[in-house]
């Protein structure tokens, strides 16, 4: 039986455990067992993006060690954490003869969730159903960081009963940007406003994302503005049979 390692991400773990559960369900149905390395915490992206490289390295070393004790591909429900493993870890350990090769092996094993389903498993139809309209927001690091876009779209296209509509200016950042949303709340607020008005223009009640960061940001904004639209991780749509 094939086994995958789930790097669930700190955000899904702490705030959106249902997304993690959906992924476990989907893999079980595909006959793939999911292993969860209990020592995993965070990928260190907040520290890396803030420029705190020493801190980011400490977390990256921890994460590398955790997954070195495991086997199988590493799957994560976040384009930005996948980008962190695949690109930023290599940047962090550039010129480090001890850690760079270890970071490289980790990177080679890492896949974003929809990328893994479509590119590694060749699955684009999970038999999921949805009653209503959906629209998709491509997260910056999923779309531009690791070039994953056709995969989530192909999976959504096969959801029965769902009407997919385009999100205007979909490729624009929602304004999360990790610590930027705290360091520069004014900028973050403007982009969030634009994202929400584009969501309203799409007339879809539901926004699908591939990253819990965007999810908590956009959903937090919708809640503040008392809007009815909801944001959902793609795994929870695909699990819906």
């Amino acid at each position, binding site marked *: 039986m094939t086994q995958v390692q789930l790097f669930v991400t700190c955000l899904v773990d702490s705030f959106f*455990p249902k997304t993690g559960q959906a992924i476990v369900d989907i893999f079980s149905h*595909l006959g793939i067992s999911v292993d969860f390395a209990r020592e995993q915490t965070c990928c260190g992206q907040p520290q890396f993006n803030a420029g705190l490289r020493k801190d980011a390295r400490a977390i990256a070393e921890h994460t590398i060690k955790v997954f070195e004790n495991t086997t199988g591909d590493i799957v994560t429900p976040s384009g930005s954490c996948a980008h962190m493993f695949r690109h930023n870890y290599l940047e962090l350990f550039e010129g480090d003869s001890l850690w760079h090769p270890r970071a490289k092996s980790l990177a080679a094993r890492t896949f974003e969730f929809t990328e893994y389903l479509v590119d590694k498993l060749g699955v684009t139809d999970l038999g999921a159903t949805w009653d209503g309209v959906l629209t998709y927001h491509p997260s*910056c690091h999923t779309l531009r960081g690791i070039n994953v876009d056709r995969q989530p779209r192909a999976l959504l296209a096969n959801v029965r009963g769902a009407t997919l509509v385009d999100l205007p200016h979909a490729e624009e950042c929602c304004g999360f940007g990790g*610590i930027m949303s705290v360091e*520069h709340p004014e*900028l973050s607020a403007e982009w969030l406003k634009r994202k929400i008005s584009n969501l309203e223009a799409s007339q879809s009640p539901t926004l699908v994302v591939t990253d819990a960061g965007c999810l908590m940001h956009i959903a937090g904004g919708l809640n*503040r503005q008392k809007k009815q639209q909801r944001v959902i991780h793609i795994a929870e749509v695909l699990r819906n049979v």
Partner: protein
Amino acid sequence: MTNNLRTRIRQSIEDQTLQTALDNNAERRLNGRAAAFQSIPDWRERRQRAHAIRADVIEHLDEYLAQFIAKNEGNGVIVHRAKDSAEAINIILDISKSLPLRTLSTQRGKDKTLVPLSPVFRGRDLRGEKVLIAKSKSMVSEEIELNHALEKEGIRVVETDLGEYIVQMRHERPSHIITPAAHLKKEQVAELFHEKLGIPYTTDIPTLTATARKVLREVFLTADIGFSGVNFGVAESGTTCIVTNEGNGRMVTTIPPVHIALMGMERLVPNLEDLSLMLSLLPRSATGQKLTVYTQLLNKPLPDQTRHLIILDNGRTRLKNSPLKESLYCIRCGACLNACPVFRELSGHAYIGKDKSIAPYPGPIGSVISPGLLGENFVHLAQASSLCGACKDVCPVDIDLPKLLTRVRAGESPAVDDRQLTTDGAGLTWTTRFGLQMYTRIATHPKLFAASQKFAALTMTLFSPRSQWIRLPAFTGWGYSKDFPRFAGKTFRQRMENGELGVGNRGIENRDSETFQSSNSPTSKPSHLEQFSQELTALGGHVTLTKNPTQSIIEFLNMRGIKKIMLEPNTLDESLLREANIEFTNTPDDQTPVGATNAICGLADTGSVLEADGALHASLLPEIHIAVLKSSDILPSLPDAMKFVKDKNAAVFITGPSRTADIEMTLTIGVHGPKEIHVFVVE
């Protein structure tokens, strides 16, 4: 310091006029860019090649510079090297002061033979007036704050790019590296022109543009020095390439007796072939044009012209030896500004340093090179980014800007003036730094991590027992515009550990992953002539097919009631012209309405014509430019024509009538160069 920036950001966001202008800029430029790239389907491969070329140049910069300088000296150009802005300014001051310029200008009027380069000069007595420098757009001159330094020394400097002219009159810095007045509405320009130039208030953009043409024409004709930047230097041939749309770049490099070109030392390409590649990417990225209206290639000074070339370091060597080296690959197209959601809220004026001075380079590239070149004052700008990657996506030389921004944040920008102030987490507020360092402790200890999750969940449930969301105060940053989710009562790891993740049953249907087919509709390829005509017509130019160009041109002139033309020798049948009572002259002046020239060749894919040396004035000064082109001389593309450039003193590819979009991004035809271009193609 970050607070200064945040105040400035708030001001920009609240300025509705500015926001409208910025949205307008972003949308038009991005759409224009996307449309222009459709005509080069291999653009991804091109940009990788461009990246490799720029990487090679920066890696071997000393050798390429030596080659470039030697070639220029051989070509009769006076080359100076400046290690910083003070040196560059002194060189320019020395040039301005050492020449008896005003005397020359006066004599120019009295005795045309003395300075045959500028017979257009109309002979006013200018003794006692200030030395006048007519300046074409140059971001490097902004970097060294040249205008300010020159004016302090009693020199009159006039910006001649329409956008730069506007911001100079407003005593502002450019808000965008390509469109300096991108932040202004036409009403503001109308008021400015009414107030400063004394014209009746009008928001009609063509009238405003025509006013600038008239005022600045006088400046070109009486300037002692023409000043320009440099888009590319070609190491192998020593060519300097300058691209402009309005024609002011051509004016300042061909009319005044002295031309000073100021270039950043990194702006080199190895040879003309590489230059063609860069030119296929730069204008498409910058303005959505296949080629700018005027692509000038300068080899030697014109007869009786002195050309100085100043090569500026000003921190570039430092940058080259730092982890920000890749930022030197930049070709200053401004696409990353247009794509950047931060720039779209701010404009260039909000990128301010700790001392509140405006960074010379805004946008994503600016947040890397402003601290990279000028130091710690601008380091905090790099924190104002979500690292969304839109900039990298549009970069024509594929610079990994998000990576470079994280390097600036990591304190890896080079130290300037031995002030090693940059540290880990550069520009971060202390609260965020402290919070993240705490989080590092937690995230490297899994048990502490799990315990903290439980603690947070409990605390937050106490604060917000009923809702899944917590309203944080605005000062936390997050609470400014959104609510924070409550920690899950049971985290994923708890559920996993408790074996709660049940498995349901359902059928799985596997399908092959979708195949994506590109829709290549087979269309017959148009001939070079058809393509040339199509491209030039789309730009507002006119193409006439003829067997007898002189006859056709006489008909055109009669129709327009024109009796006198400026004529490049050996272009038309002069006896026919005489018979038709058309007066013609070879001496350039400012009054003749038509200039007729021979085109060396045409370019099918851009609708351009190549003119050189003897045709430079006739194709620039009059309102109407007529070019005679043999249909067999229409070549497919720019690289095919570079061979004709090598042996010329100066050449220019002309792509349509002169134009600008400097006021409200509204395309306006006819700025400093001709308003009309008519190409008579001889079958």
